């Protein structure tokens, strides 16, 4: 499935992901600039992304862990998510997102 990513400079990328991958893994393994310091266990906030509005409702809501970790992020919006907490499913094919400020 395809994931559309806009980086902090406004460059656009089309990434290929598989069902079951996390969003962070797809972004990281395509060598885009995402730190993901803790490796995906929701223990830092360095895989922060903004999900495009129309895709938000397709995602399950943030859990307590993710909400707490977002306290350490800068410029948190309603569309903010930690990408390590989003597992890809077939209905997310075409998902659009933006990388947040580090």
């Amino acid at each position, binding site marked *: 499935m395809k994931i559309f990513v806009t980086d902090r400079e406004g460059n656009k990328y089309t990434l290929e992901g598989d069902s079951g991958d996390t969003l962070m893994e797809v972004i990281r393994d395509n060598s885009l600039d995402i730190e993901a310091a803790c490796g995906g266990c929701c*223990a830092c906030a360095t895989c922060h992304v903004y999900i495009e509005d129309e895709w938000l409702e397709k995602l399950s809501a943030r859990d307590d862990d993710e909400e707490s970790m*977002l306290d350490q992020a800068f*410029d948190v919006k309603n569309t903010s998510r930690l990408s390590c907490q989003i597992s890809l499913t077939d209905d997310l094919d075409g998902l659009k997102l933006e990388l947040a400020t580090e």
Partner: protein
Amino acid sequence: MNEKTDVIIIGAGPVGLFAIFELGLLNISCHVIDNLDKPGGQCAELYPEKPIYDIPSRVNITGQELTNDLLAQAKPFKPVYHLSQQVEKISKLESDDWLVETNFNKKIQAKCIVIAAGAGSFVARKIPLDNISDIEDKKILYAVRNKSQFQDKDLLIVGGGDSALDWTNELSKISNVTLIHRRKEFKAAPDSVSKMLKLEKDKKINFSLGQIKEVENLQNGKIKVVVKNEDIIKEHEVDFLLPFFGLKMELGPISTWGLNLDENLIKVDTEKFETSIPSIFAIGDINTYPGKLKLILSGFHEAALMAQKCFKYCYPDKKNIFRYTTSSKDLQKKLKAI
């Protein structure tokens, strides 16, 4: 006088702790330096309560349990820990020993250096705004070192964790404190949260919801902090801004030591895990080589092989006889097992 040891380990994460053990079996003594105030590295700081499932023989173990067990395993070798400080500088002495200096002016001399620094040192996460570097560490403080400078001043504290709440409660005694957090829920200890809420109710502090948007240095010596909550913008004019956004990791001074690096990782060989500078080793997540996997168990293996080469530097005239802990009386004596 400098303190003296055989090996200095930089980083007290799981791999650094296991290196104490592997070196200890070969009669090599260690000092360990870490920027955190406790051993364990990421395991203790980032995920103390989270389970790890791929430590051989441990079906599951939390980050903190692993740390505790590694500390216990290393204990017979009497390692010396230097915590809450970062290695700033290394240099070679005439005796061919290394001299390692920390930001607390501690000087330690050793034959080898083992870098087991994971993803780097934990440092405060800073505000990612371009125009504030002039006032950082002056009017924007990421840690409190000298409380008295806040006497009767206007402070803006930002965050919802223990640091933010503890300092709000403490500094409210001597300063005019406003606390900003992005939501009504706090991650801090419940006791600190209720103390803060009581202070707010008694009008001893102000609390408002929001996030920092901009910071500006004013002519009158104060700083203007623009805070946004949903669509409401509020400006705060204060003497000090104290943001507490947790910790992040960065390579720090290690990148200036002249080691061969590959994208912030230290290149090593896979026989001895030695860097491009002889007698400096790198093990665990901080190193790279063809096929590297960033797993704790890889770091354990690297520690064992590194120790073999360290022995040659520490005891150039001695023969290293390979022994098993199961059969060697000598090793068991060292481990206090017999």
